[in-house]
Structure formats: structure tokens, C-alpha cells
């Protein structure tokens, strides 16, 4: 019940900006609900007039009116649908954008624990359920209830006892339908879950089709598909057998209603309390009642689904925002110095579903006190879980330290103006996501950075992508996925383009070249050598060879700095931790001591 209340509040919130449209909709809805009520009245008038041997003109008039009102009723229905769908889509599109904006503002720990697929389901799936709830349930059921109440009132006007009996009858019908629906809901959910398992399996098998073909496991996969589908068959049979009782109940009520109403009509006619036309009218209203009862039965399921959707949407919107970008201080131009002032970081007590590695309360970083001079390259090394990535996130202000402060270019990041921060600090990640969008949109991230075509071309040429660009059918307007596919190496270079398009003063490189072959890696390295001139860089290295270019090395362990100094000095000092790590990696890669460092990137 609470979920339903959330639902209505959310819906009301969404509809406020569309007040006038909602009012218009109400008018159309009232017309669509009321017009079917006129039909039986006209039928009675017709039958009684015919019995009274009225003039042909009067009968013709009634007949014409009947047809006209029928058309008007359907017209009102279409108008209602149009209005409702429009309002619903405008409102829920706004909700989608709000939810998307909110999701983007959430901490990375939230995203680490929530797959993009789950977020699509939240932002789009649940918003669509809410839109459907509005168009199908609110609008149609409101119309149906209107018709229902109207028909019962009009029957009551003819004979209050029949009206009272009919009202009782309808309420009983609705109550039973609701009960049956409640029984069907869990079965329906089980059916959908079984179906989702079938489709999940199919999707995974298709995705891994090559693996299965190469391993000759096709037959085995098919038997698994049949087994899971067998569960679906059983669940579907159970669900439909339960659900069909709702329809059988509606049919039964309708049949019973017809019989009872005709019996009552006969009785009243015999006592001459009503005319033959009124018997037709009462019969007509039983017909009118059918569709609303069916509709309400049909739509009740939607309420639960939409209520669950609204609940999930509400939870997403209530998820606390990680960082509020309200600083005012602009970052200076040129290379930026990074000063970490006794920085500590630990995850606060969040609920259980945020990541498994984020153990609440455990300090991830403890008392990091470092200055990374402007224009220098610093390598961050240490075993996984030592806090390298977290430290980098603090420098990017994707999180704020729980103690101490991070200063970039002399500005405490918590006071930094958001736009200037995003323009002056960049990141290059290991995995670069390529959008199904144009090359231009992919590099500028949909125009987040203003750049003319010449700048873009120059940058792509700098990254050695000019020949590739020249081959594209539409140049910068070529669409990834349609006109052009991106290899892992090209995606990596695209990631560099994104980062350097905005002239950053601080660049965080998350071991950018780990996934590419030596030739592409060399291309990346060469480009970095040029692009990093006059900028501060922090290289997060999972393998030590990636810090070849570093002037300074910081070794982290268990969230503490255990060593910090010039790379060459540390490498030469046999007692240093860094040298020990180098020796360990050499032993692991088995590279003979005499051989040149791997890979030997030429410095330009």
C-alpha cells in the first residue's frame, strides 16, 4: 500500500507542469465516459415510441441521434487517448531525463555496483511502466468508473430497488475480480521471471555462440534451453490457468446479471411498473456495464507493476548525490600542481548493495601528504587494493576526501568551480566506451567541449588517426556502429582525443596502453610524449613498465604512501621498495636482465 502511495505522489509531481492539458483531458474523458450511457435511453424511447405508434419522423430522429452519439463517443475516446499519451510521454520523458541526470551525479561506487542494463531498466523501463499506468489505468479506468457509476445511477432512477441490487452486484463482481487478480499476480510474476530466464539464457548463448561452436557444445546448450523452457511452460500454464478465472468470473457475472435483470424487468413489467422500452433499457445497461468491469479487471495488474516501478524510480531519485558542484574558484591555466594535504578516505556506512569491495568504515587511504609539482609525471604504483584508483578519483573530484584536502592548482577541489574543473582536469581510462554516434560527438562527448572541425582534425592527426579519418565515408560525421567500427586500439586513441581536446592542466592516465599491441602502444606513447608537454600527469600503473615515463614514483600500500621519490633514484636504490617491485616483476616476466627494457619506447 505504501508503494502505491509513493506512486500516486510521483505521478502527481510529474503531472503538475501539464495542468492545463490534464484538465482538457478530464473533459474529453467525461465525454467518453458519459456518451455510452445515452444509448439505452434512446433504445427505450424508440421501443416505447414504436409501441405507442408514434410518427415515423420521431423514430427516425431517435435512430439518427443514436448513430451520431455512437460516433461522438468513439471520437471522444480517440481524443482522450491522444491527450493522455501526449501528457504521459512528456511527463515521463522529463522523468527519464531527471533520473538520468541524477544517476550521472551518483558516486562511482554506485555505478560499480549497478550495471548499465539495470539502470536502463530503472530509467526507461520503470518510466515506461509509469507512462502506461497513466494512459491505461488512470485514463481508461477513470472513464470506465464514470460509465459504471452513471449506468448504476440511471438504473436506480428507473427503479431504486433494481439500482441498489445492481450496485451491490457490481461491487461484488469487482471485489471478486480483485481477489482473483491478487491471486494471479504472483503467478504472473513467476511466469515473467521464467521467461526472463529463457531470454537471458538465449542472449548469453548467442553472445557466446562462437565459444560454444568452437567447443562443440551446441547440443548441450540446446538441452539447457529446453530445460529452462520447460520451467517456462509450467509457469505459463499455472499463471494463465489462474488468470483465466478473472475472465470466467467476468463472463459469469455478466451472464448472471443479464438473467437477473431480465427477470426483474419481466416482474416489473407484469406489475406495469415499467414499460417494455424500460426492459430494453435495463438490458442495455447490463451490456454497458460489461466493458468497464472487463477494463478494470484488465488494468488492476498494471497498478502493481507500475507501483513497483515507481517505488524503484523513487529509490533511484532518493539515492544521495555524491558530489554537489557548487564551488566558485576557477582553476588557473597551465600545468596544475597537485597538493594532497593529509588526505584520508573511507567509505561511509552505505547499504549492502553498493559494491562488495567497498567495506564500510575501512579506511581506503590514510594520511596521504604529497605534492606533485606542476608539469611533472608521477607514477602511482602498488598492489591492487592499495588505493591507487581511489587516490586518482579524489584528484578528479569524483569523490571528496573524508579527511584532509586535495588542492589542484592551489584550489581546494571542494571550492573549485565545476566547469573549470572539468575543463582543466582530464582522465584517460583503460576501457573506452564508443557511442553509437558520430566521430565528432564521440570526441567532444556530444558537444561538451566546443571545438571546430579543424581542431578536431588536428588532434586526430596528432594521434595518428588522420589516415583512418580520411577513409571514413562521412568524415567526422561518420557514425560508429553504422559507418565505422572501432577496434580496441582505435577506441584507446579516441579516449586520448577526448581527454586532450580540452587542454587539461592535469591528466590522470589509468595505464592507458595495457590492452593494445606494441605498435599501437608506441603510437599512444609518442602522442602522449607530445601531448603531456606542459601538463601535470598522474599515471596509475598496474604494471611497472607503464611508469617508464614518470619523473617521480609514489608507492602505495594499504592506503599509505610507503615510498616517494624520483623514479631513477628509487630504481637505482637496491633497498627501495620500488626496486624490489621491479625485481619481482622482472622475475615474473622472465626478461633477461641484459635485454632492453620492455617495451623500449622511443622518446621524441
Amino acid at each position, binding site marked *: 500500500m505504501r508503494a502505491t502511495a509513493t506512486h500516486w505522489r510521483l505521478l502527481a509531481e510529474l503531472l503538475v507542469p501539464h495542468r492545463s492539458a490534464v484538465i482538457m483531458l478530464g473533459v474529453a474523458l467525461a465525454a467518453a465516459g458519459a456518451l455510452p450511457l445515452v444509448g439505452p435511453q434512446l433504445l427505450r424511447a424508440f421501443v416505447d415510441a414504436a409501441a405507442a405508434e408514434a410518427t415515423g419522423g420521431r423514430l427516425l430522429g431517435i435512430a439518427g441521434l443514436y448513430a451520431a452519439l455512437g*460516433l461522438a463517443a*468513439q471520437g471522444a475516446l480517440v481524443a482522450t487517448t491522444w491527450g493522455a499519451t501526449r501528457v504521459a510521454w512528456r511527463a515521463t520523458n522529463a522523468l527519464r531525463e531527471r533520473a538520468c541526470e541524477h544517476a550521472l551525479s551518483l558516486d562511482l561506487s554506485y555505478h560499480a555496483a549497478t550495471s*548499465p542494463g539495470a539502470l536502463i531498466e530503472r530509467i526507461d523501463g520503470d518510466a515506461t511502466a509509469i507512462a502506461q499506468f497513466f494512459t491505461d489505468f488512470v485514463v481508461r479506468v477513470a472513464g470506465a468508473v464514470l460509465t459504471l457509476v452513471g449506468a448504476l445511477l440511471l438504473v436506480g432512477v428507473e427503479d431504486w430497488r433494481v439500482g441498489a441490487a445492481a450496485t451491490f452486484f457490481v461491487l461484488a463482481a469487482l471485489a471478486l475480480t480483485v481477489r482473483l487478480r491478487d491471486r494471479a499476480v504472483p503467478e504472473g510474476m513467476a511466469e515473467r521471471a521464467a521467461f526472463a530466464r529463457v531470454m537471458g539464457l538465449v542472449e548469453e548463448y548467442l553472445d557466446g555462440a562462437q*565459444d560454444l561452436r568452437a567447443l562443440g557444445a551446441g547440443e548441450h*546448450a540446446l538441452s539447457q534451453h529446453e530445460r*529452462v523452457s520447460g520451467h517456462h511452460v509450467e509457469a505459463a500454464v499455472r499463471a494463465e490457468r489462474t488468470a483465466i478465472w478473472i475472465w470466467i468470473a467476468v463472463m459469469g457475472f455478466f451472464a448472471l446479471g443479464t438473467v437477473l435483470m431480465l427477470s426483474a424487468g419481466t416482474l416489473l413489467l407484469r406489475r406495469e411498473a415499467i414499460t417494455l422500452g424500460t426492459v430494453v433499457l435495463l438490458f442495455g445497461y447490463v451490456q454497458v456495464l460489461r466493458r468497464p468491469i472487463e477494463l478494470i479487471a484488465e488494468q488492476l495488474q498494471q497498478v502493481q507493476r507500475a507501483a513497483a516501478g515507481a517505488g524503484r524510480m523513487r529509490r533511484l531519485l532518493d539515492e544521495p548525490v555524491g558530489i554537489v558542484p557548487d564551488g566558485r574558484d576557477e582553476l588557473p591555466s597551465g600545468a596544475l600542481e597537485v597538493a594532497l594535504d593529509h588526505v584520508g578516505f573511507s567509505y561511509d556506512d552505505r547499504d549492502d548493495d553498493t559494491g562488495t569491495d567497498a567495506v564500510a568504515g575501512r579506511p581506503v587511504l590514510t594520511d596521504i601528504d604529497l605534492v606533485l609539482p606542476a608539469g611533472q609525471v608521477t607514477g602511482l604504483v602498488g598492489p591492487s587494493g592499495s588505493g591507487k584508483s581511489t587516490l586518482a578519483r579524489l584528484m578528479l573530484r569524483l569523490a571528496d576526501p573524508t579527511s584532509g584536502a586535495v588542492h589542484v592548482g592551489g584550489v581546494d577541489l571542494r571550492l573549485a568551480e565545476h566547469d573549470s574543473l572539468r575543463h582543466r582536469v582530464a582522465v584517460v581510462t583503460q576501457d573506452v566506451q564508443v557511442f553509437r554516434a558520430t566521430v565528432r560527438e564521440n570526441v567532444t562527448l556530444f558537444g561538451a567541449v566546443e571545438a571546430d572541425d579543424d581542431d578536431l582534425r588536428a588532434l586526430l592527426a596528432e594521434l595518428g588517426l588522420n589516415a583512418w579519418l580520411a577513409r571514413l565515408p562521412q568524415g567526422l560525421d561518420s557514425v560508429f556502429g553504422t559507418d565505422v567500427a572501432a577496434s580496441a*586500439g582505435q577506441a584507446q586513441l579516441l579516449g586520448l582525443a577526448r581527454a586532450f581536446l580540452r587542454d587539461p592542466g592535469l591528466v590522470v592516465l589509468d595505464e592507458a596502453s595495457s590492452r593494445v599491441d606494441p*605498435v599501437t602502444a608506441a603510437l599512444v606513447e609518442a602522442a602522449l610524449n607530445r601531448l603531456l608537454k606542459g601538463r601535470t600527469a598522474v599515471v596509475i600503473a598496474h604494471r611497472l613498465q607503464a611508469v617508464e615515463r614518470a619523473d617521480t614514483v609514489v608507492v602505495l600500500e594499504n592506503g599509505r604512501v610507503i615510498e616517494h621519490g624520483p623514479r631513477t633514484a628509487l630504481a637505482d636504490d637496491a633497498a627501495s621498495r620500488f626496486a624490489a617491485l621491479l625485481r619481482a616483476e622482472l622475475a615474473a*616476466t622472465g626478461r633477461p636482465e641484459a635485454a632492453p627494457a620492455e617495451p623500449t619506447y622511443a622518446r621524441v
Partner: protein
Amino acid sequence: MSRPELTGRAAAWALARYAPKVFAIGASFIVVWWTLPVVLGLLLQRVFDRIADGQDVASALTSLTVVELVRMALLYAFIAVWVRWWVTALTLLRGNLLRAQLASGGDEAGPPVSGSGAAITVFRNDVEDLVLYLDTWLDVAGTTGFAVAALAIMLRVDARVTLVVIVPLLVAFAVNVALADRLRAYRRADREATAVVTGFLGALFSAVLAVKVAGAERASLARLHRSNVVRGQTAVRDRVLAESVEALSGSTVDLSIGLVLLLASGAMRSGAFTVGDLALFITYLPWLAALPRWAGRLLTRQRHAEVGVSRMTQLVPPAAPGDVVAHRSLRLDPHAPTAPRARPASEAPADVRLRAVGHTYPGGGGVHAIDLQLPPGSFTVLCGPVGSGKTTLLQALLGLLTPSEGTVEWNGRAVPDRAAHMVPPRAAYLAQVPRLFSATLGENVLLGVETPEQEAAEVLHRAAFETDFRRLNDGLATMIGPRGVRLSGGQVQRAATARALAGDAALLVLDDLSSALDAHTERTLWSRLLDDRRHPTCLVVSHRAAALERADQIVLLEAGRVRAVGTLDELRSRGLDPLATPAT
């Protein structure tokens, strides 16, 4: 050019014959259910005529109740039969398509689809469209049965009125037909607009770090807004047109009743057209209106089915489109124990020879005329820059790409169907980005092959997965994937390596193990594999010293061709050190 085709109608007919008895029983239930309202109308006619004449209506009302009870029972019986038939039909179709996509060579193998995203809609929607089309035939048969009987009765009551009132029904049918195309176009546009929005959201949240650091939130939202506006428009258009078509058939009923009143007014005053006749017409007209509606739906759904079937046939062998609806017995009892696959006898390390093996992509790239000898028990490392064709060569060798060029000789004999031949126990493959499935670790590694626990543990050890394995609470029964333990990239790579090793194959093909492994783990893996004297013939892609140093031969690829072959020392002496990179 004349390739066999499968039409929507032929596919539906084949499906109807899959379980003919069940289909016939279900069909007769629903046709009778649709036709019985003919009797209801006659009974109501009698009731009203008797009421008008002041006669007793009890027996007529009792008959009415009985007929309704029969219809309720029929509906229940129909559902009980039909749902099972329906889901079984869907499963048959999905199974047939899956069989074509997963078959390792042979006549059953269909052309592999790229990207499961597009194919999944075939498995979800197109399959359902075909079954729905067949189902619609039953409703059309039922409504037609009703219409024939009802019209015969109505003609006997008043031929003139009957002939006039069916005109609006015919008009409704014509409009339904005329709008079917537009309805379909609107629906498609709406689906496409939806895919744009969901696709964008997916990419956006996959790239959330880059988006946040670039401060591209606002720009991305603006882009989302644009797609949303388009989708809002397509959705409204689609919905309003669909509703209009429904409303059309609703207004036909009112129009027809109006016409009945109009035409019958004279006869009614004279008593030739009774109030019972009026009740009969009023009862029949909504049921009659169902026929044009269902006929219109049939046309629309037939088109959906045609499109769906043509998409389905793209997943099966081009020469055998009928495979889509091939009749196969399904083991749908979920409680029956699954028979484990028998383990095939292992073979000695293979002697493999590639002669002019290649594959050319539609765009022109690929690998060309590769000659290569892999002696039994040898260790060959492929390397070369991105795009040089390493993965393509492996896939061409394994027959995973069509068309494949050249020949592969296996122990001296040419292999006629590579895809069918290159499977365990002959060949096993680890893909560059291997896929695991949401199932237990044991299911993932063994793929249903009966294996003693001890042996499975040994395979995991050889794949350097033993430490991770010890940490799993349920051992081989541990669920992995989204609904179980989430494995890291390296763990996935090693579990998939174990899967390839479990095949106990004579030729082991491993694509780029190193991308997700640290150097130490990779070294461990190679030693465990190669230190075994009886290790299979190996062909692997790697750039790491750990692999290159142990290689019997290194094959240096460049732009789809072999640039050099030799040991690490030989290549170095020729100035082709694969570990170094050219100075830029």
C-alpha cells in the same frame, strides 16, 4: 539466385502440424466458443418476444444460463490446452534458431549473426509474431463461423436491414486493411526510437567515468532529450492510430444499430419487426464487428509474421529455410534429470598444416594465403600489430568464419568441414574476449561433459584458477555471473582457459591470454601447460616474453600476411624483435 523461401503462411502451417492433435483440440474449443453467441442471440430474441407477449421466460433464461456456463467451461479448457501449445511452439522455434546458431559446422549451421542485440529481438519478438499469427487464424475462423451463422439468421428475420447493416462492417474492414501498412510503419518507427534511447542510456552508463570527468553530463542530457522528443512523438502517433482503428470498429456497431432502428422503424410499428428481433440484432452486431477487427489484425499480423520469418530464416542455413519450423521432439520436463554428455576419447597431439588459409571481410581486410605447419606437440605464438589478422587467422583455421579460404590438413588429411572438425577432442579454443554463462562454475568449465571432481579441479589448477577456486564456497556448484559471484576480467579469462583445457584437445588455440592477466600469472599458466610432456599442439596469440621465449616458432603477422616465422632469437637476429617496437 533462386534460393528456397519460407513464407509466413507456410511457417504457420508447419507449426500447426507440429502437435496436430493438441492444435485441433484447442482450435475446435475456441471456434465453438466464438460461435455459441449465435445461440445466445436466439435465446434473447425469444426472451424479449415472450416478455412482449406477457409469456413466461424462465425456460429461455435457464437455457441462456446453460449456454453461458458451457462457454465458461470451454474457455477454461481452451486455456489449459492452449498455453502449453503456445509456449511449446515458441520453444520449438527458439530451439531451431539456436541450433542453427550454435551448430559446429554441418548442414544445420546457419550464418553466424554479429552482435546478439539484433538477434535477440528475433528470438523475443519475431518468434512470438509467428505464433500470434497462427493464433489469430483461430480467432478469424471463430468469428467467421459466428458471422456466417448470424448473418443467415438475420437474413431470415429481415433481409433488407441485414444487407444494409453489414455495409458499415465492410467499410470498417476496408479501412482496417488500408491502415495496416501505416500502423506497421508507425510501430516500427516507435520501436526504433525506443532502441535509440535505451542504446544511448546503456553506452552513457558504461562510460560514466569519462562522462563525469569530462563534465559532459549536460551535453549528454541534451542529447537524451532530443531522442526522447522523437520517441514521444512516435509513441503518440502509434498509440493514437491504433486506438482510432479500435474506435472505428466500436463506432461501426453504434452506426449499425442506428441503421437498424432507422430501417426497422416502419416494420416495428406494423409489428413485422418485433422487439425480440431488435434484441437479436443488437446482440449480434458487436460480435459481427469482431470479424473485420480480427480480419484486419490477421492482415497486420501476417505482415509481421512475414517480416519475422524472413529475419528468422537469416539465422538458419540459406539452403534450408524450413529449418526454422523443423519438427523436433523437445525435452520440456524440467524435472527430468539431464543426461551428462559422455566424454570423448582423447587424441594424440595433432599435426596441423595450413595451406593458403585465409578469410576476406566484406570491407576487404582479413588474412590471406597463410601457410603454416604446426608439428605435433609444438608451441606456436602468433604476434603482430592490431588489425594484422591474428584473431581472424585463428577463427579461419577453426572454421568460425565463412567463407573460409584454403585447406587445413589434420594429421596429413584435408579437413572437409573445419567448423565440424575443429571441436573437442580435436581442437579447443579460447576467444580473445571469452564469454561465460550465468550458471555454475562446473557447468561453465565442463559444458555438461561428465568429469570426476578431481579431474575438474586439476583442469582449474592448470588454468591457474586454483587459488580463486579455493575461495569459492560451493566449489564447482558456485553460481557465477550476475546472479552469483561476479568474476573479475582475469578470473573470467582463466575460467574460460580451464573450459578450453577441459576439452582435452589435440590442438589448443588460445587468443591473447595476456590482456587480462598479470605477467606472473601468465608465466605460471604457460609453465603448467607446457611443462607437461604430452601437451597438445598449441597455437596462441601473445605479446609477452613469457610466451615468446618458450615458442618453438613465432609467426609475425602484418596486414593479414606472414611477415616472418622463427624462434625469438632467430627473429631478433633478423632485427624483428617482437618485444621491441619500431621507433616512431
